[in-house]
């Protein structure tokens, strides 16, 4: 046996403790996924409003601490949650794989559903997608038309490409399937169980997965349908250039912001 670490680190040495960590980090990630989807709804307001929303996120907490510090705090928390979620899943999967033996004559599933049995596939798929998504829309690696500071333009430029739109749709279906089991499983892992509320847990997971699915799928579908479109222009860049021109400046500090 390994030496026991001091509390609360010793919780992470047990499988039940790791499931707690998986559930709590899962909860944080659910919160992120919901806020991210709701924030993206600014795409329906238009390019400038989407840009302003992105700037609002960078401006969080500027009354107290320097600009983007709050955003970076949230990002670091998110990365930590992702890391622990993946590590606990990896180590528990290894534990179960070594404990399990297959049935030579096959087996029948009664309660386990498609979502619960594919967690170990939908999880890595979503993880890969997150890396692609960051490279695509945050770092601009895959997109020759990428313009820093104009998220609306970048979303249209990426998702108007059909294979990219299909990849976004597949990944978001995987995410919703993952949430369908995860958001229910979370309650069991944390021991949140009361006969009075138990039926609500499954329904809450279903509702959450559905809301995320509908919201997130609407973006690639509506870009493909031409509803979300900027005709290849960058409305944000044009407006900022006009503002600079009116102020009698050649591309100055605001241009640097892009």
């Amino acid at each position: 046996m390994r030496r026991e670490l001091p509390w609360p680190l010793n919780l992470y040495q047990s499988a039940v403790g790791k499931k707690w960590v998986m559930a709590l980090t899962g909860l944080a990630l659910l919160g992120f996924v919901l806020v991210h989807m709701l924030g993206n709804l600014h795409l329906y307001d238009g390019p400038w409003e989407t840009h302003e929303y992105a700037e609002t996120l960078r401006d969080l907490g500027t009354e107290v601490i320097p600009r983007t510090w709050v955003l970076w705090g949230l990002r670091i928390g998110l990365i930590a949650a992702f890391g622990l979620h993946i590590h606990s899943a990896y180590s528990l999967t290894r534990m179960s794989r070594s404990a399990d033996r297959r049935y030579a004559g096959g087996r029948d599933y009664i309660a386990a559903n498609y979502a619960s049995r594919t967690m170990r596939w939908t999880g890595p798929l979503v993880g890969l997608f997150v890396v692609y998504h960051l490279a695509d829309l945050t770092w601009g690696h895959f997109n020759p038309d990428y313009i820093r500071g104009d998220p609306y333009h970048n979303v249209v430029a990426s998702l108007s490409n059909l294979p990219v739109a299909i990849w976004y749709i597949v990944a978001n279906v995987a995410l919703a399937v993952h949430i369908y089991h995860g958001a229910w499983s979370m309650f069991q892992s944390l021991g949140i169980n009361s006969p009075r509320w138990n039926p609500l847990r499954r329904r809450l997971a279903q509702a959450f997965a559905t809301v995320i699915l509908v919201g997130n799928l609407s973006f690639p579908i509506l870009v493909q349908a031409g509803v979300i479109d900027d005709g290849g222009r960058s409305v944000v860049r044009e407006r900022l250039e006009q503002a600079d021109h009116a102020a009698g400046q050649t591309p100055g500090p605001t241009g640097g912001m892009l």
Partner: protein
Amino acid sequence: MSATGNGTLNLRLRVWRQDGPGDAGRFETYDVGGISSDASFLEMLDVLNERLTLEGREPITFESDCREGICGTCGLMINGRAHGPQKGTATCQLHMREFSDGDLITVEPWRAGSFEVIRDLAVDRTALDRIIAAGGYISVNTGAAPDANLVPVPKEAAESAFDAAACIGCGACVAACPNSAAQLFTAAKVQHLNLLPQGQPERWARTEAMVETMEQFFGSCTNHGECEEACPKEISIDFIAWTNRDYVRAKLKNRKLAGQR
């Protein structure tokens, strides 16, 4: 044998045969005719074994004891389901009327890393005993019997504890679990004591010790719920949630109690 029966069945059985723990094992097929639909699954295997013995062949090794669903000794994977197709019963309570004439029935032992096959359909379930030995008891001073009703127990707690205590330790939960986790067994054995006043003094030590012993032998729960469906006593996975909560509380409490372990 079947005065009230609704006929006899002719079946084809595909049974796992394994000569010992080291043997690779294989399926063997047997045609079994004239089985009463009133026979239990184990009685059907008895009939087959008698024929095998008369033919001078090695009978199939399987475990059973009470044959009325209360001892937990029997347990077979029948057509990919722990204890067969009928819900809420052990293999001994499964009757052949659940099958149709001409059926092919696949019979396998429980499969888990910690359940080594001893021979054919019999597996070693010592790991479950290790979990009980870690804390599945209460310590009492023996002596004169205490007065009846000296310790009041709320009715709800008594009923809930009894639901958990219905566990017969057959191992179907482990067999049915895609992770080979023993969460339902352990949770039932932890909670039937943790829910009662008599179980309180050792509650936190018990929870920690039993969960950690379980984790040495079995996989990690992913909340599929297969165990609840397979359980011949229909024990709820609610007990697993309560044990998850008790475990994290135990780690904190035991730290304060300093070395209760």
